């Protein structure tokens, strides 16, 4: 098992590591030199402009620390605000995303394997996913009253379509040879679905899940901006209304970090789960 893991890792990284510390320094410099340049230029420009709405990065970082990292070390310095702002929104986002993913994958695979049934619902699906989710926020607000339900509804409605369509596509385009083989060796319906169709469709399902995760973050923010009393989006709105522009910038930066981490974690999981596919025809 270990040998396999090693040989696979070796296959992914074909270049042998060579060169000493100088080479590593050069690699870092050639890759990251622009970042300090841009930050320095931004700092200088912001100080020169001296506008309240355009604070220098140093002020933004200070504000971030003040807002979210002023807590006790036992809580990794997270402040009460950090926990109060981040947790509810993230909780809703994950709940919505997981719910949509579950329904999307199950329904998508079912429809992908049942071509005739899919014909009946495809026009509805294609129309529904073309409706921009923000159009429905007001509707959900009126329907649900509770803001948590409203936000969940916005997120679920918005992110289910990429998962559903990709799962359908994946289940529909399972290599015929795989199914023939399964039939010849007498695999039952359940096994065929779980052990053949699901893994065969997995690369497409993951592409859909990834798309829907970044969409979920967007919808979390917009739903909190429009109708919520907590969450990062709500704090962002408060900062804007209070003309706390370092706070606005800081929140955006935080959301950027969040998006980056979410995507990185997702890619990590995807690589692990789809290790057999990474070497194949990955496109996204």
């Amino acid at each position, binding site marked *: 098992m270990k*040998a396999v893991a090693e*040989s*696979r890792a070796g296959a992914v990284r074909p270049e042998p590591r060579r060169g000493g510390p100088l080479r590593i320094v050069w690699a870092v410099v050639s890759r990251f030199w622009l970042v300090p340049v841009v930050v320095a230029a931004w700092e200088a420009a912001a100080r020169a402009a001296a506008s309240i709405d355009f604070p220098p990065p140093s002020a933004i970082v200070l504000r971030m620390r003040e807002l979210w990292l002023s807590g006790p070390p036992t809580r990794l310095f997270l402040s009460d605000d950090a926990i109060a702002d981040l947790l509810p929104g993230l909780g809703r986002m994950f709940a919505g995303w997981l719910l949509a993913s579950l329904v999307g994958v199950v329904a998508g695979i079912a429809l992908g394997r049942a071509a005739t049934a899919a014909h009946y619902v495809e026009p509805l699906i294609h129309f529904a996913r073309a409706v921009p989710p923000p159009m429905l926020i007001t509707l959900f607000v009126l329907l649900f009253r509770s803001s948590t339900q409203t936000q969940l509804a916005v997120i679920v409605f918005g992110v289910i379509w990429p998962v559903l369509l990709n799962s359908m596509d994946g289940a529909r385009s399972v*290599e015929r*040879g*795989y199914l023939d083989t399964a039939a010849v*060796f007498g695999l039952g319906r359940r096994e065929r679905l779980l052990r053949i169709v699901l*893994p065969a469709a997995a690369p497409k399902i993951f592409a859909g899940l990834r798309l829907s995760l970044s969409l979920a973050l967007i919808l979390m923010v917009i739903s909190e901006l429009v109708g919520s009393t907590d969450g990062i989006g709500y704090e962002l709105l408060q900062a804007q209304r209070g003309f706390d522009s370092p706070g606005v910038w800081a929140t955006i930066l935080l959301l950027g970090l969040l998006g980056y981490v979410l995507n990185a974690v997702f890619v990590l999981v995807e690589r692990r789960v789809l290790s057999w596919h990474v070497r194949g025809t990955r496109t996204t």
Partner: protein
Amino acid sequence: MLKVVNLAHAYGDQQVLAGIDLSVGDGELVSVVGPSGCGKSTLLRSIAGLIKPSHGQVLINGVPVEQTPDDLAVVFQDYSRSLFPWLSAAGNVALPLRRKGMSRRARREAALAALDQVGLAGSADKYPFEMSGGMQQRVAIARALAYRPALLLMDEPFASVDAQTREDLEDLVLAVRANHNMSILLITHDIDESVYVGDRVVVLTRSPATVTESLTVDLPSPRDQIATRELEAFVRLRSEIGRLVRGRPDLVGEQ
């Protein structure tokens, strides 16, 4: 063992098989040779129960085939479409054993034993993308062996590998056949191959296919890639089959 009676099949109004009769005895290895596009694969798919033929019957041990029979395994031509890329070699071999009610451990052991037989003892945990084409086809053969079918169907099993590997795999099939009491139906477009591995060669005409001839291969065992092919009997059989298909230019210079 296997009996095919007056089997005919058409896709729409295109007739591919026009009344095929053939049989495979217990422990016999029958090669079916014919020009490509003559419906060999349709024949195999009908026997495997993957398609329902328009006419005729397939009997295994006297029982008509309705769905895919229990006692049957298939090695397909295109290993890349029949090995599951998300499973290791052992995983691929063990998967069909689930329905035999074997424990996880027993499945794994059976898989390792089968892989050992095809010369892949050290590669059980490799994934298909880490193996050469020849190795992948060996895994497919191991999967069929571990399943312990009474009848093994092979659909152009060596057509997607290079010449050297092909010879190795032909010998592998002969070797496992000597060890297991298994009836094998091997479909090929290669005349030499059909003679080399077969106890009997069934020659098909081009589409819509019928059986023109069934020739017994009277060559000594064990066969040898060099010596057997030099034998006068081998050359004579090869010529005879070649003559049977002469006048059918689609067989000449094929692939």
